């Protein structure tokens, strides 16, 4: 009995039966009708999920043939694992979607039955193996959809619905024709039988049949440009219906495509092109879209395009075994995320993206939105990430670089408009926080959780050590669960957990990994300590901080490119979210994300081509790459250079570094930025050392790029009034030296790189933390509004002083060692011009450093700052640790250089010779220990002399206005402090050299992208007739494309 109830055919019967009954019942009792409606839905879900579980357990697939009659006269269903999966997913979204349609159903009883029939139609589309049945189910689905649209009764919906009908009815006409032609050729309507008679599908008729069949299905998937009608529907109908169309109907149509793909052998490139064009074009147009639902519509269409592309390409490459992972991943990702987003759009009900301001104050809503968007953008651990990864791997392995480019570009564009939307949601405007019933969030929240869960399942299924790779994510979730605790407690928790986790990690590493283990994990821990200085709760901060720190650890632990990329993406996402917490960050986070994703995609492509050649995703096997080594190295280097903020690619950097929260900026610049250096060294170590291909030329270019970054960073830093922007540009410049040092690719060069990296970590951490304290105390970031603070914040002053001496390369502190090593390396390599530029850049750096310390700490103190106190000791403590480290490395440079040299041991011939405390290279020598002693001597002796002389002078300590002011008295500190536009003459001297060219260029790129979007969307006139014409043209074009003309 139970077994009978659970028969798959009941999916059709129950829905159909109840569907027809409902209007009748509704006449007598609306509530009974509703109850029955829900019951049926639950029943449908129950059947499909029970079967899904059974099939997963290995039960054989079920073939249903109704009434004992052969199809097409009866219904022929095949219920395998995939079918069960898709049907369950569709039923689940249907039942959850109807949650959002309750009001709609109340007012229109008939719509319930239509809804059920729609669900049924989709299930049928998925399950049937018979072409004519497929046609019927397509038509049922279509009719049900039309019904839902017609019941809405708003003019816009009606218009959209009519357009939808015109287009889809044309499509189904084509499908029908195609079906009949195939039948004519093969004498059967069953897909499996047709596959047996593939040899009969030839000649013009065969071609025409294929084209018509293909177009019939493809049009249902709304390919660009024949999809204007679809978008109109997404825009106008209720969110629940839109979600159903986007998720359910598309799923059915896509499954139909999946079924007929084997029939389409020769058409696959065209199918791929159709998918690719749709993916790219829709995402371009999405850029221009500010209507949330229409934007989601474009995204939907794009996702379908991507899946079409993936399907076709995988079949083309004969890699159909990856379909499960790629398509499955992309499909479930799209299903959960897109349905969720449509529902959310319905719940929040603000049509324009820019109206989503204030969501920040509804944490649950924001988290859900964040998860859904992250999934859609292909961030780990969501299933889309795995799908996209495998897709890129297979595309690269199949030597289809063009498709790799299309997929990555499209994904980037999609992320751009999705995250622009998210950016609005992040805006801080409490008054505009949406009022949402929590009940409404249950289904969408459920989907968000399912996304996380499926992510885990996929990782597990892939055989990754899921717990370890996913640790950052778990940490984030656990800490988020504990987010109600007091701020400091959470901070301690994060730091404690990190310490416990990181210690064995560092201990277990060796070589380069060990070095960067210390830099990233130890340095990260020390600098992250500063978060303790704030006692407020900082909702959301600590979970993300945990995610960030743990992802750094994962990055180091990664043994395969997949793990590396996973950690890299988690790092990107968590830094993006952390940056977005800064007050003024809104304008910059999108840029940050775009460049981060661009960088990630370059890296992904690099890994892909490496996999393509070696067939291995182990990091260690990167060194086996030979043929495409140059390409892989270029892609990886470029990717990491973006994150390192190389000149031209740096436009994201100043905004992100300066607008992040003050204590996080330190972490971002000093530690997170080093991940890119780690990546660069990793790539160089595996690929550049062999010197195959044109890698040496690449390195030469990189060396210039590094130094140009150093110069540009220094020059830009000169003209900043914002202290954090100044430090941000300074970071860019300093990292430029490191990049150049890496490019030198010799022992000297890499030791210099390691040395500079550690040094940058120390002084930039120091400076950013000091500035954090400063900003926290003064409440401003503008340097000219400060001044004379040495008297109030002496410890902070000492930090900054040590920091700037260390950064500027003035002996005796650590900075000099870095410059010495770098210049020696450059001389040794024969890169003399670069050496000159390096020197000049470091001289320019001196200017902004002086400005930093002068305008903030020296000069005239403002009256408002009279009573400021020193920064919190919790903020000073890590600074003191860093100062101690700087001093120790200054006195004993060997402490630093030896471990660095040992982590690169054996790669290059030895060029550094220790002679006691003396360090020698071929060209020069330097004894850090002796130098600091001599300097101490020449400093202390005059100091003692002056102290002695002071005994004979009455030295009066005076106040800030006791200055010689041309015989006048200063009026106010503001007008007496020389700070604003400090280096105006430099601007005047260099003039056009200082134009922000990179920013202009990227603005241009953004402008072009939008223009492309505008151009592409001109086709969408809104006229249903035009859309029908496109459909027709589409058929013709496909026909031409598959060779129908020749």
């Amino acid at each position: 009995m139970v077994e009978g109830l659970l028969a798959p055919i009941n999916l059709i019967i129950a829905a159909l039966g109840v569907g027809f009954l409902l209007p009748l019942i509704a006449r007598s009792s609306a509530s009974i009708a509703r109850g029955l409606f829900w019951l049926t839905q639950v029943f449908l879900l129950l059947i499909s999920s029970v079967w899904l579980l059974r099939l997963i357990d290995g039960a054989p697939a079920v073939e249903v043939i109704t009434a004992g009659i052969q199809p097409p006269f009866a219904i022929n269903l095949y219920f395998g694992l995939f079918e069960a999966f898709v049907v369950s997913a569709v039923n689940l979204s249907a039942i959850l979607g109807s949650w959002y349609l309750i009001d709609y159903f109340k007012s229109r009883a008939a719509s319930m039955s239509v809804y059920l029939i729609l669900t049924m139609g989709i299930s049928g589309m998925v399950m049937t193996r018979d072409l004519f049945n497929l046609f019927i189910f397509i038509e049922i689905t279509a009719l049900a959809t039309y019904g839902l649209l017609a019941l809405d009764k708003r003019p816009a919906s009606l218009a959209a619905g009519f357009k939808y009908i015109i287009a889809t009815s044309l499509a189904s006409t084509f499908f029908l024709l195609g079906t009949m032609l195939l039948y004519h050729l093969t004498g059967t309507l069953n897909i499996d039988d047709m596959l047996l008679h593939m040899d009969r599908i030839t000649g013009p008729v065969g071609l025409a049949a294929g084209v018509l069949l293909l177009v019939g299905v493809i049009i249902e998937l709304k390919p660009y440009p024949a999809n204007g009608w679809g978008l109109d529907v997404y825009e106008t109908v209720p969110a629940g219906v839109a979600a159903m169309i986007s998720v359910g109907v598309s799923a059915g149509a896509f499954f139909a495509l999946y079924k007929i793909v084997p029939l389409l052998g020769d058409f696959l490139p065209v199918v791929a092109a159709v998918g690719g064009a749709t993916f790219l074009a829709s995402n371009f147009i999405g850029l221009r879209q500010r209507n949330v639902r229409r934007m989601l519509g474009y995204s939907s269409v794009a996702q379908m395009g991507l899946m079409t592309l993936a399907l076709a390409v995988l079949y083309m490459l004969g890699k159909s075994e990856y379909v499960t992972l790629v398509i499955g991943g992309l499909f479930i990702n799209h299903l959960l995320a897109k349905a969720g987003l449509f529902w959310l759009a319905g719940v929040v009900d603000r049509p324009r993206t820019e109206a989503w301001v204030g969501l920040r104050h509804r944490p649950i809503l924001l988290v859900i939105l964040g998860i859904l968007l992250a999934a859609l953008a292909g961030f780990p651990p969501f299933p889309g990430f795995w799908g996209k990864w495998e897709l890129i791997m297979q595309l690269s392995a199949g030597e289809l670089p063009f498709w790799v480019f299309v997929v990555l570009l499209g994904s980037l564009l999609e992320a751009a408009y999705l995250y622009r939307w998210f950016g609005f949601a992040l805006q801080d405007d409490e008054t505009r926080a949406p009022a949402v019933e929590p009940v409404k969030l249950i289904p969408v929240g459920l989907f968000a959780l399912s996304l996380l869960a499926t992510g885990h399942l996929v990782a597990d299924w892939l055989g990754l050590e899921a717990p370890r790779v996913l640790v950052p994510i778990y940490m984030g979730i656990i800490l988020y669960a504990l987010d109600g605790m007091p701020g400091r407690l959470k901070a301690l928790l994060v730091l404690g957990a990190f310490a416990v986790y990181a210690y064995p990690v560092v201990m277990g590493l060796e070589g380069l990994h060990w070095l960067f283990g210390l830099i990233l994990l130890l340095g990260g821990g020390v600098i992250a300590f500063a978060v303790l200085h704030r006692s407020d709760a900082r909702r959301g901060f600590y979970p993300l901080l945990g995610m960030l720190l743990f992802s750094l650890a994962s990055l180091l632990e990664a043994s395969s490119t997949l793990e590396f990329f996973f950690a890299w993406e988690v790092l990107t996402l968590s830094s993006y979210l952390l940056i977005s917490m800064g007050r003024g960050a809104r304008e910059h986070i999108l840029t940050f994300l775009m460049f981060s994703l661009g960088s990630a995609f370059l890296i992904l492509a690099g890994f892909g081509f490496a996999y393509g050649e070696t067939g291995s995703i182990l990091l260690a096997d990167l060194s086996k790459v030979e043929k495409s080594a140059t390409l892989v190295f270029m892609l990886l280097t470029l990717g990491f250079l973006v994150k390192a903020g190389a000149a031209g690619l740096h436009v994201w950097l100043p905004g992100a570094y300066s607008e992040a929260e003050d204590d996080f900026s330190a972490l971002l610049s000093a530690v997170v930025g080093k991940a890119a250096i780690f990546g660069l060294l990793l790539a160089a170590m595996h690929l550049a050392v062999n010197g195959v291909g044109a890698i040496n030329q690449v390195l030469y270019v990189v060396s210039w790029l590094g130094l140009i970054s150093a110069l540009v960073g220094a020059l830009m830093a000169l003209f900043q009034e914002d202290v954090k922007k100044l430090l941000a540009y300074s970071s860019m410049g300093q990292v430029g030296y490191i990049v150049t040092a890496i490019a030198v690719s010799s022992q000297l060069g890499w030791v210099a790189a390691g040395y500079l990296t550690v040094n940058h970590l120390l002084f930039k951490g120091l400076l950013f933390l000091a500035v954090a304290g400063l900003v926290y105390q003064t409440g401003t970031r503008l340097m000219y509004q400060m001044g004379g603070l040495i008297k109030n914040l002496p410890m902070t002053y000492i930090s900054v002083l040590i920091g700037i001496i260390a950064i500027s390369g003035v002996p005796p502190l650590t900075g000099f060692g870095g410059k010495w090593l770098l210049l020696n390396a450059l001389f040794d390599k024969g890169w003399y011009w670069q050496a000159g530029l390096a020197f000049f850049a470091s001289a320019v750096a001196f200017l902004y450093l002086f400005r930093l310390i002068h305008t903030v700490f020296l000069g005239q103190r403002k009256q408002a700052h009279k009573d400021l106190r020193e920064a919190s000791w919790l903020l000073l403590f890590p600074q003191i640790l860093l100062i101690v480290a700087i001093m120790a490395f200054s006195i004993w440079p060997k402490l630093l250089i030896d471990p660095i040299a040992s982590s690169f041991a054996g790669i290059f011939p030895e060029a550094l010779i220790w002679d006691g405390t003396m360090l020698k290279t071929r060209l020069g020598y330097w004894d850090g220990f002796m130098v600091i002693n001599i300097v101490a001597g020449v400093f202390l002796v005059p100091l003692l002399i002056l102290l002695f002389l002071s005994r004979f002078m009455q030295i009066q300590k005076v106040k800030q206005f006791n200055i010689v002011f041309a015989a006048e008295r200063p009026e106010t500190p503001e007008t007496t402090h020389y700070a604003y536009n400090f280096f105006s003459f430099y601007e005047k001297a260099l003039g056009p050299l200082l134009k922000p060219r990179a920013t202009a260029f990227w603005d241009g790129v953004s402008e072009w992208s939008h223009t492309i979007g505008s151009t592409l969307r001109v086709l969408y006139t809104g006229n249903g007739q035009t859309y029908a014409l496109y459909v027709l043209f589409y058929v013709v074009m496909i026909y031409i494309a598959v060779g129908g003309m020749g």
Partner: protein
Amino acid sequence: MDLPVSTITLSTGLALLLIGMWGMLTQKNIIRMIIGFSLIDTGVHMIMVTIGYLSGGTAPIINDAVDRLTALQDVVDPVPSALVLTAIVIGLGITAVMLAFAVQIHDKKKSLSIENCTESKW
């Protein structure tokens, strides 16, 4: 002239199809577009029937008049004809829905021109 029936039906079907397309793509009036669709539908049905037709064949009724052994060559394929029935029903349904839409649109907009249905675009 010795025109086979199938040629006549096929060309008629195609002609209807094209006329219907023309109607759908050029007529601004929604009702006319629906008529166009009906024509397409009819055309397609005719084509379907033609595909199954065997020149000189007999009705697909297995009785004494048909030799069971040669039935496959002699008998007109019954499947398309059967399918056409379903297709006609579906076509009818769609036409009905379209007309319903037309009524609704006319109610709301007081116009039947497709050009007035451009609220959403781009």
